[in-house]
Each structure stands twice: as structure tokens, then as C-alpha cells.
């Protein structure tokens, strides 16, 4: 097999060649990037507004010109020509360079922001100071490393979103979805919180929901909300309503895609900047097994952490506030047990054996931690407090997993590594989607030719073909509903649909096309 692939990458007329315009556009973009590199190297630009605009402008212009040349003037329709021949998208040399560069950037960003020019006491220098004018303009404050990151992140979603829209412009689902992602990133994730700060309100992005936003219930955040009066209380209330009301309703109606591929910023970056890497996700059954254990463990971790943090925030006396430590602790234990019981009573038939064992195991873990916490009497979990747990979560999951591995490794492991293996929000929405949603991907009768485009381009590593070639609906908790499997299918076999819960999970053994006798036989058998 390797011989064949070896041949392919050596071919003289590989479709991977860049046109002159594309080279020129890359040059323009790199000049913009070079200004940022100079800023990191502590070059102090005289007119920061000018140079910042120049830098971001050139990066944007380069990408837009590149995308225009690549897609406009060609027929509408998805062209993944040469994706696997290109070094950058086929895990070649440049993919590793890019992966390592991104990873280093994240390490500096999270743990060594001083190298970017962040000064706790005094004026910023380096790249952070370059962004001061923009930050001053929006929020009235000097920039921080998070502002720099947020700006670049938003810029990436916007310019690569533009590229994505051109590439998939024959597909209105993809176009509208991408506009949505761009809107939520620019409006909700980037501008709104900064403007709130300008208005002296708490920093708040309503689209960032617990547990993805694991800081929502920390004491400093709750204090901030409570001291901000009505607005703060509304924000806190909205945070709670999002978790327990809005999220389940929307997921019931549309599947988790309403969040993961229409709203979420992590998903937004994966869909736009990460699109050239979507084919790199691992589709093996082995990867699927790991995925299910890791993602649910992160969910358990964040749940325990949140319980611990809230626990230490609350008081002991019922006279001060009805929600005391004890009420909260046992209330949570009761709620989780109830949730578990409801799922096991009504939906156990839809769960595989290992999923049941997993669920039981996790419930036992959470309940025993709660008991341990209670009976040890000191309010600590395993001898350390909720804050230490939060710090560890922030370090391991919030930074290392979602940032360094999640984005830094795009060119190696594919674009949705974080969403697939790590995101606790995706885990919760996934459970809702798997058990209580009208969403599924349907297969068109017997038309599948098992070509494998759907599986190859599934960023979540779902082996879509395995279902499609059986004529089976695809109901998977990890599916983010990006719609690409349906888009790249050369035979029009897949469709994302919201329909009745009845008959959502079907598995007819025989494909449509054979005569009724055979169908009858199988239907009888399955009864």
C-alpha cells in the first residue's frame, strides 16, 4: 500500500501547486505576520494604530486574495483536490512546523505572557502594546495577552470563514452556518464582553455556557455578578437557564449542532481555520473507545470541580441564605442520582453495555467524592480544596487540552481534537443528542457506494460510511452536525434531518433495491 502512496506524492503534476496570485497573496499575508513577529521581538513601532491596522489588514487581504484565486472562477462545488499531497494538509513537513509553532505560541500565551510583553505593573511592551490602541478603542483599557489572542482568534474565524464560504458556496447550509459562527465570534465572544467592561459591567459572553465556561461559578465571578446589581443577576440567571432550559430544548429540536457548529467559538475556529485539517481525524474504532472515556472523564472532572468550588463559596448558616453548603451538596447528589435514574429507566435500551457501566462508574465516583467531602468534615476533596482543583482543571483542561493540544495539533490530529476528546459541554450536549433529540443523519435508501468521502472528511472521526452502507440512520453523540459528510457525498446519500423520535434508530439489514420478499424476511426477523 505504501508504494502506491509514495508514487502519488512524487507525481510531477501534483494539483498542489500554487498559482502566481496565490504566491503573491501568501507573501502579502506573511508581511502582515512579520509585523507581528517584529512586535514579539520587542520592536517598538512609532505609530501603533497604523502598524496594527497594516498588520491585520495585510493578513486579511492576503487570505482573501488567496481564497478568491483558489475558488472563484472555478465551478461551484467542493474540491479537495490534492489535500493529501500537500505537505501542510497531509501531515508533511510544513504541517509539523505549523503544529509546533502553534503549540509554542500557546505555551507562551498561557504560561509566559511576559515574553509577549505583558507587564503587571507598568506599560505593556512587545506585541501586547501593539494591540493597545484597538483595546483602548473598544473597552477603554490597555490590551492583555487575552485581548491579543481574542483579536487574532476572531480575525482567523472571519478570514478563514470567508475562505470556507467560498469553498462551500454551492451549499447553503454551510454558508449560513458559517455566517452564524462568524457573527457569534465577533459579536458575542469578542465585542460584547469588551463593551460590557467599557460600561462597567462584568465581562460576560452569553454564548459561553458552563461547563465550557468553567469559571462561571467561581467565587470571583459570582461576586462580580452579585455586585453588579440587576444586570449581574440577570447574567447569572441566564447562565443557569442556558444550562437547564435553553440547551436541552434546542438540542432536543435540532441536535447539538445548534451550539457546536453554529455558535461555539472553539467549533468556529475548527470549522474555519481548521477546515483544511478535518480529514486528519482518526476514524478507527480504537480512537472511538478512547474518545468516549476521555471526554466523559473530563465532564466528571469539571462537575466535581464546580461542586467543590461552589461548596466552598456557600455559607453554613441557613439564616443568611437558604442555600447552605449542606443543602447544595445533597441537592446536587440528589439531582445527579435522579438524572441517572431517569436515563436508566427510560433509555437504557439505547445504551451499549460499556456505556451503562461507564455511567454507573461515574455516578459512584461523584457520589463518593461528595460523601468523602461531607464526612471528612473539612470541606476538602481528597485533602485539597476546590480552588486547587480549579487551578488544576484550568491548567490541564482549560489550557493544555483545549489550547495547546486542541488547536496546536490541528495539522497533525485534525481540527476537532478538543471538541471530540475533551469538551465537557460537547459531552453533555452529546448525551442529550444521543438520547433525547430529533436530530439524525439519514441515508438515502440503497444509494451508498461505500466510497468513504463522508468518513474521511468527518472532523469528529465518525465512521459515517459504516452506517450509510447499511442504510442506517446516524445517531451519534459526538456528531456536531457540520453537514460536511452530506456535502462531500458524491451520490447524495446523506441528509441532516430533524424528525420524529420514533424510528430514529433503525437498522434494516437489507438495503433498499432488493425485492420485497427479502425486505419482509428481514423485517419479520427483527420483530
Amino acid at each position, binding site marked *: *500500500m505504501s*508504494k*502506491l*502512496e509514495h*508514487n*502519488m506524492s512524487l*507525481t*510531477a*503534476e*501534483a*494539483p*498542489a*501547486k500554487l498559482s502566481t496570485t496565490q504566491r503573491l497573496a501568501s507573501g502579502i499575508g506573511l508581511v502582515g505576520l512579520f509585523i507581528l513577529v517584529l512586535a514579539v521581538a520587542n520592536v517598538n513601532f512609532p505609530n501603533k494604530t497604523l502598524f496594527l491596522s497594516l498588520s491585520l489588514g495585510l493578513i486579511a487581504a492576503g487570505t482573501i486574495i488567496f481564497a478568491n484565486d483558489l475558488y472563484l472562477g472555478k*465551478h*461551484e*462545488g467542493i474540491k*479537495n*483536490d*490534492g*489535500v*493529501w499531497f*500537500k505537505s501542510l494538509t497531509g501531515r508533511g513537513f510544513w504541517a509539523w512546523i505549523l503544529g509546533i509553532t502553534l503549540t509554542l505560541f500557546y505555551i507562551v500565551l498561557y504560561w509566559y505572557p511576559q515574553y509577549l510583553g505583558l507587564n503587571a505593573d507598568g506599560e505593556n511592551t512587545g506585541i501586547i502594546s501593539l494591540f493597545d490602541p484597538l483595546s483602548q478603542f473598544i473597552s477603554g483599557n490597555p490590551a492583555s495577552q487575552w485581548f491579543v489572542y481574542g483579536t487574532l482568534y476572531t480575525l482567523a474565524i472571519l478570514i478563514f470563514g470567508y475562505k470556507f464560504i467560498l469553498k462551500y458556496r454551492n*451549499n*447553503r*447550509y454551510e454558508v*449560513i452556518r458559517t455566517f452564524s459562527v462568524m457573527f457569534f465570534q465577533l459579536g458575542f465572544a469578542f465585542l460584547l464582553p469588551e463593551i460590557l467592561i467599557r460600561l462597567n459591567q462584568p465581562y460576560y459572553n452569553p454564548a459561553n455556557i458552563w461547563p465550557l465556561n468553567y469559571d462561571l461559578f467561581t467565587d470571583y465571578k459570582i461576586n462580580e455578578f452579585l455586585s453588579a446589581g440587576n444586570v449581574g443577576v440577570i447574567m447569572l440567571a441566564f447562565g443557569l437557564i442556558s444550562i437547564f432550559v435553553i440547551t436541552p430544548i434546542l438540542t432536543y429540536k435540532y441536535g447539538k449542532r445548534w451550539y457546536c457548529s453554529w455558535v461555539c467559538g472553539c467549533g468556529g475556529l475548527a470549522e474555519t481555520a481548521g477546515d483544511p485539517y478535518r*480529514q486528519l481525524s482518526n476514524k478507527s*474504532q480504537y480512537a472511538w473507545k478512547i474518545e468516549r472515556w476521555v471526554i466523559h472523564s473530563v465532564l466528571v472532572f469539571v462537575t466535581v470541580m464546580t461542586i467543590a468550588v461552589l461548596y466552598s463559596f456557600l455559607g453554613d448558616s441557613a439564616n443568611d441564605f437558604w442555600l447552605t453548603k449542606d443543602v447544595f451538596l445533597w441537592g446536587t447528589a440528589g439531582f445527579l442520582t435522579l438524572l441517572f435514574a431517569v436515563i436508566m429507566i427510560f433509555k437504557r435500551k439505547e445504551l451499549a453495555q460499556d456505556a451503562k457501566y461507564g455511567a454507573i462508574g461515574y455516578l459512584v465516583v461523584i457520589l463518593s467524592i461528595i460523601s468523602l467531602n461531607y464526612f471528612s468534615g473539612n470541606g476538602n476533596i481528597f485533602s485539597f480544596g476546590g480552588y486547587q482543583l480549579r487551578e488544576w482543571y484550568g491548567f490541564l483542561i482549560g489550557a493544555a487540552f483545549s489550547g495547546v493540544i486542541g488547536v496546536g495539533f490541528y495539522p497533525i490530529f485534525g481540527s476537532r481534537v478538543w471538541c471530540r476528546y475533551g469538551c465537557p459541554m460537547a459531552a453533555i450536549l452529546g448525551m442529550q443528542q444521543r438520547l433525547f433529540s430529533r436530530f439524525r443523519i439519514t441515508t*438515502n*435508501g*440503497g*444509494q451508498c*457506494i*461505500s*466510497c*468513504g*468521502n463522508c*468518513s*474521511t472528511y468527518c472532523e469528529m472521526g465518525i465512521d459515517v*460510511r*459504516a452506517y450509510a*452502507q447499511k442504510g442506517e440512520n446516524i445517531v451519534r453523540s459526538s456528531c456536531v452536525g457540520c*453537514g460536511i459528510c*452530506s*456535502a462531500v457525498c*458524491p*451520490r*447524495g446519500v446523506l*441528509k*441532516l434531518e430533524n424528525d420524529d423520535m420514533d424510528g430514529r434508530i433503525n437498522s434494516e*439489514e*437489507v*438495503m*433498499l*433495491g*432488493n425485492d*420485497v*420478499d*427479502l425486505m419482509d*424476511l428481514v423485517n419479520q426477523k427483527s420483530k
Partner: protein
Amino acid sequence: MEHIVIIGNGISGITCARHIRKNSDAKITVISAESEYFFSRTALMYVYMGHMKWNHLKPYEDWFWEKNRIELKTGFVEKIDFEEKMLHFSSEEMMNYDKLVLATGSVYNKFGWEGQDLKGVQGLVSKQDLELLEKNTKNCKKAVIIGGGLIGVELAEMLKTRNIEVTFLIREEAFWHNVLPIQDAEMISKHIKSHGVDLREKTELDKIVANENGRVKSIIINSGEEIECHLVGLCTGVRPNIDFLKNSHLETDKGILVDTFLQTNIKDVYAIGDCAQLKQPLSHRKPIEAVWYAGRMMGEALAQTLTGNKMPYKPGNWFNSAKFFDIEYQTYGNVSAKPGDDEMHFHWQHKDNTKAITIAFDANSNKFLGINTFGIRMRHSVFDQWLNENRKINHVLANLKQANFDPEFYTRYEKDIFKSFKENLKKA
């Protein structure tokens, strides 16, 4: 334990093996000389175009076969001793069987052109053909494709992604007009040309000319014109791969002759897929149908018979699909390329030349016969049901919305189609 041997690991053989395993504990051996593991032939083009790697073509992971106790044997069967129930391999190995399934597939046609065996002249059916294409297109600037079928247009698309100039010779007056009605065929012709392919209708190959190294250097067409090229793609259809079975007691014609239970004239020997020729095909169906779906259905049906549930192969309504560059094509039921007096066609086409439907119906009874659809996805199950229920064309057009399978937010054309139909009726 009964030993069922299947020769050929394409879709027919593998589907058969999988379904035997579902219903029985028999020992199953699948023999192939082409590839170690089952791969999806329909996706060969995507490997060449760089959309996928070879591994992506395998619908099952490598551990699947051992886990399901389906033994895979790499080898080339040279001769079969039907009396002794013994297979003779080219490596001089032997293997006996209790039941034998022949699923040997197709090879591409050669019609005895001068120069057809030169270097740089090839078809595209097997994995080896793809590897050869990779070699043949190194430093290739110009290619000629002979024959206007599905593989031809796929090959054209493949070569275009490597910046190779393509001249495409077809015998009909528009692309695939032996299958597609003329308006459909013309739209696809136009689309292929719009991709920069030099499509030449009503043109046939006369001979292929060699250079001093025995490689192809040009071809000469029936008008006498010489076209320079470094590759000639032979895409004038396929025929059953049964040469090694000639001169045996096995009854063959173009393919291996089988009854409705897919059994040959020899006991315990069956044939399925591209290599099988039905002695009594159903009306509207051909004796040999070299398509993925037919192979899969034959595999399903035969597996039932082999595991004790004797079942005839009775395919339901005809369906098929393809993609011509950017235009997806699906068909359900029967739409004749050149309809007789009994069959009427209603054709609708979008002005952008990428979407169209052609509906065939009975001129006397208005019964719906079939549909060709381009650029609009339709539901298989809905059309299958309408065909079974003998619906009239009015019913189909009035309920076309139910059959739509396009992704969400796509522009819908049902109203447009319905209006156009009514206007056409008035004119008629």
C-alpha cells in the same frame, strides 16, 4: 464444517461473505489476486485526486476479517476442477471447496484497435490500473479518453486535477446518450466542456500510434485527424472477467450463466456481480448489470440461499447514481434514452445548466415510469414506493416535495417544475 469459497473480494463477494457469516458458521474463504483487503472500487478516483488515501478506501478495518472469521487469501486462481471441487492457483497451490461463489468482476473492453496494447494505453477498473495510471501520467501533458461512459468522465475529472489536457472522444451525439435522453445528455456534455475538457461528439478511434520506444505518441480518429497524447484511456465499457473459465463445463455466454437463484449449470457453483449473466432477466433489466448496487444485492440474496433460506435474486425497481464533475445524478425507475411512442418525457432544466429532471411516463395511461434527476437529490424510498404503487405523473409532480433529499436551506424547485409541466401540457 462446510467450506464456502468466494473468488473475488469486490462488493459482491464481500457482501455475500458478510451475510453468510451473519446467518451461519460455515468456513468462509475469500480469494483475491487484486488486493489484500476489500476496498471500494468506486472511490479509486479519489485516491488519484488526493481527496483520500488508500486506507480510506477500506470500508472495514483490517481486524474486522479475523474477528468475523472470514479468511482472506491472496492468490490467483488459474484453473478450477469442478469435478474434484478443487481450485488450482498460479502458485501451484490447491484448495478445495464445498460451495463455490464466482465473483470475479469485470475487465475493460478492447475492440482490437491498432496499438491498443502499447505502453500508455490503459483502462481503469482495478487497483493495478490505478497504480499504472500513476506511472503513466508522470510527465504526461496530454491525454485522450475513448468512450463516453461513467468511467470516462471520472477519468477526465481525475486527469484535470493533475493539469493534464484531456480530449474526450464519444461516439454518440452527446455524452452517454445511449443511457440519457438527449436533453440530459446535452446538458452534461456542456458541463464537461465547461471544465475545459475537449469533448468530441460523434468521434471514434481509428488507431493508436507508437513512438520509437513503443509508447503511445498520438491517436488517429475516424476523420483522419491525428491527436498528440501521452496517455490513452480506454473507457468503452467492461465485460465479465471469465477468460480463465473458458473451456470448462461451466456454461458461459458473455458472462457466467446463472438462474434466478444465481446458480450456474454446475451444482454448488454460483456466480454474482459483474461476471454473472442472468438467463432470464426481469423485464426492463439487462442480463448483465455491471453496477455496484446489483453486485451488492446479488451478494445479499445468494448469502440467503447458501445459508439454507433459498431465495431468488429479484431486484426491485432500477436505480443508479453517478457524478459528472459537479453534477450529481440519480435515477429511479426507467427513463429510456430514445423513448418509443408509448413513453413521454417531461423535461425541466434550470437556467444555470446544473440542475434538471426528466420524468418518463406512459403516453396512454399517464403512469409514472421513472425519473432522471441532476443536481437535485431525491429520496430513493419515495420513488420506490411510487413505482410500486403505479402512481400517475400528476401524483408524482404534485408530491415532488416529499421526495426532495437536498440539504437544509437549499433552494427548492418543485413549484417551478410543476408550473413548467402545466405550461408544457397546454402547449401539447
